């Protein structure tokens, strides 16, 4: 009881500092440390907590850690800039929480962050966790930006404080489809792994291709734990498609590609971002992997701003995996909105966040009324001799060759010129389940 009471008091104290510290109230402690005359200069900074939620343990901990790194990097950089909000210097602090990618833990972790009175949250990683958690943030009125939850349902709930900087499954799907269409394929077979991510993606690809008049010759489903794809591949082979799209992760996409080539299937393979990794070389064999195409939401890691890449590499000594640039942007968005509104009070800076226009590591960011990213770019890659190379950027329904896009970007904004090194493609770890 006593202990609980103490902790409670500490929390209250912390929250007073966090929330009201920036307002009119003078902290007695501050006064003691920095006596009146010098107060304006040497004022004790106000601590603002930013939550970072994702799986730090369990099946996809490596992706969760990557996301968390992105947030930490953004916050460290912001702290170096000595930002002032409401006339007071502000020190940002990251509060990282582990949701274990477990849907039933989503609300609990969200509650922990709400209890700690964070000013905003970057997370979560999986859609399955993010959706139940978002209700808790909505109740508390705390803005949440996910850098990786792609399930369309997240922003269809009508919560005005829930955002994402990554493209939705139904934005990414059309992009791959458009690229396939541009390749002049006539007959396409589509398969997915019956997860929210895979099925969502495959359904959108199907829709877009159908609208473009491409014939869908087969629509198959497997599971994310399956290893035997020969049955469905044999069926697909019988329909002789020009291309096969698979919505799923590399753990199943790789073996599927291998088994397809063993069966003598010659069609071009297309994948979403879950299988857009170099692990595919190992799982499918380098020879089989050569030539498949895949998409990634947003600009690719190597096309993310060079300054971000360098800073990330310098701080963590590894390359970002997939979503770190997105969580980095998400954290920066929160800070930018606070600066714009000149307040760290969620209720006050939320409107600023809704109407923000920001150039981040993953390109230009604006939100639509649902909280989705407007006009998100999607990049198409191809596997070339064991390396992923970007071939095109799809934006606003148009497919632009990657080289042309880069030239355009270089002339438009030389300062934020993306790294021109496809060879430095990300060393992507395989991810089994996610989103």
């Amino acid at each position, binding site marked *: 009881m006593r202990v609980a009471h103490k902790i409670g008091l500490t929390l209250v104290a912390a929250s007073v500092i966090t929330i009201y510290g920036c307002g009119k109230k003078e902290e007695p402690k501050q006064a003691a440390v920095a006596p009146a005359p010098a107060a304006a200069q040497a004022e004790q900074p106000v601590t603002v907590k930013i939550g970072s939620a994702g799986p730090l343990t369990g099946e996809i901990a490596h992706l969760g850690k990557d996301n968390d790194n992105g947030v930490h990097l953004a916050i460290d950089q912001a702290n170096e800039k000595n930002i002032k909000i409401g006339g007071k210097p502000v020190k940002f602090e990251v509060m990282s929480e582990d949701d274990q990618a477990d849907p039933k833990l989503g609300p609990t972790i969200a509650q922990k962050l709400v209890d700690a009175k964070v000013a905003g949250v970057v997370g979560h990683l999986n859609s399955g966790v993010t959706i139940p958690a978002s209700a808790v943030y909505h109740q508390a009125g705390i803005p949440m930006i996910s850098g990786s939850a792609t399930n369309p349902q997240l922003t269809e709930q009508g919560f005005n404080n829930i955002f994402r900087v990554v493209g939705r499954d139904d934005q990414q799907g059309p992009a791959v489809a458009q690229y396939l269409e541009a390749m002049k394929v006539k007959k396409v077979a589509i398969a997915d792994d019956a997860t929210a991510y895979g099925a969502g993606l495959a359904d959108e690809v199907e829709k877009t291709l159908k609208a473009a008049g491409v014939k869908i010759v087969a629509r198959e*489903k497997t599971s994310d734990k399956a290893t035997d794809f020969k049955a469905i591949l044999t069926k697909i082979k019988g329909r002789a498609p020009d291309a096969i799209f698979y919505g799923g992760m590399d753990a199943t996409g790789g073996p599927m590609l291998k088994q397809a080539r063993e069966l003598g299937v010659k069609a071009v393979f297309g994948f979403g971002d879950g299988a857009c990794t170099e692990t595919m070389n190992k799982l499918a064999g380098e020879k089989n992997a050569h030539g498949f195409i895949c998409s990634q939401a947003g600009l690719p890691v190597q096309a993310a701003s060079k300054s971000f890449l360098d800073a990330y590499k310098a701080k963590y000594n590894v390359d970002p995996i997939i979503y770190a640039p997105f969580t980095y942007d998400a954290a920066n968005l929160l800070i930018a909105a606070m600066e714009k509104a000149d307040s760290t009070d969620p209720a006050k800076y939320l409107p600023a966040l809704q109407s923000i226009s920001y150039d981040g590591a993953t390109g230009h960011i604006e939100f639509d009324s649902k909280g989705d990213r407007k006009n998100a770019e999607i990049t198409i890659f191809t596997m070339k001799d064991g390396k992923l190379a970007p071939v095109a950027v799809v934006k606003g329904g148009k497919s632009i060759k990657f080289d042309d896009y880069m030239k355009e970007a270089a002339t438009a904004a030389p300062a934020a010129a993306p790294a021109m090194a496809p060879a430095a493609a990300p060393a992507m770890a395989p991810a089994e389940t996610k989103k």
Partner: protein
Amino acid sequence: MDTFIQQLVNGITLGSVYAIVALGYTMVYGIIQLINFAHGDVVMIGAMVAYSVIAVLAGSGMALPPLAILAIATLCAVPVCMAVGYTLERVAYRPLRNAPRLAPLITAIGLSIILQNVALIIWSRNPLAYPQIVETVTYRLTPNPDGATITNVQVGIVGLSILMMAGLLLLVYRTKLGIAMRAVAQNPQVAGLMGIDINRVISMTFMIGAALASVAGVMDGSYYGIAHYQMGFLLGLKAFSAAVLGGIGNLGGAMLGGLLMGIIEALGAGYVGELTNLCHLSGWSDALAQRCANDPHLAVFGSNYQDVFAFVVLILVLVFRPSGLLGERVSDRA
């Protein structure tokens, strides 16, 4: 027709793996009337150990022929799995042989969880890509250049399975150990009185089953090119269903059941979509016809139910013919 033949080839290859795993279930069941719940995970351990050995040998720069590497890997996996099988029996089954039925089942589930998580710690959560050391050679089965094919790996798997089944039959029906096993299966008390060391025979049974499982693990891993710490779970369940289909406790039944299960799965996944396609009924309803115009693949069931077939077969067999196809004993009702 090409598609059908190809599905049969796929099914028979898969079925051969099931058959080998099913043998392990059936042997243990035959002798102590218990299901070895952790058997699927023994398969996984076999695949994992072999993976490590292959990775080391293939990466060492020694110019060993691929088949030699595979053989060495299998020879390393077999003793490890036999040790695991022995431990399973000692820890989960022997101390509880006279306890209520529930007890050894629960212990075995516990051991299955432990095996999976130990494998996770050793080999990580990521799916392991089996190094492709054997160059795949494809043979055409029909004159059609795009028609049904069979690969050397598939031929190898089916051939090896047949050899192992033959070896097992010889062991059970032609050796002293085999006689002892059959005696214990019939009546352990009387067998004990006849001077048979029951504990030793039961241990041997577990170890033989585990050895078969390890080979199945290597076959599965090199066929699909992937190994994962949870791969044993579904494989084990399906193999068990295969054993029940064939008649649990019956060696021939396990082989037949395994093959059938593989074929059912391949044909099921390949054809269920067409069989349950609602668009055949378009004449009955205009609304349906409209949906079908837009989506000709509108089916009640699709390949997404591939994993369900095994369970459905299991339940059907248990309801209509609990003794399985070849089993004589009616499952007792205790």
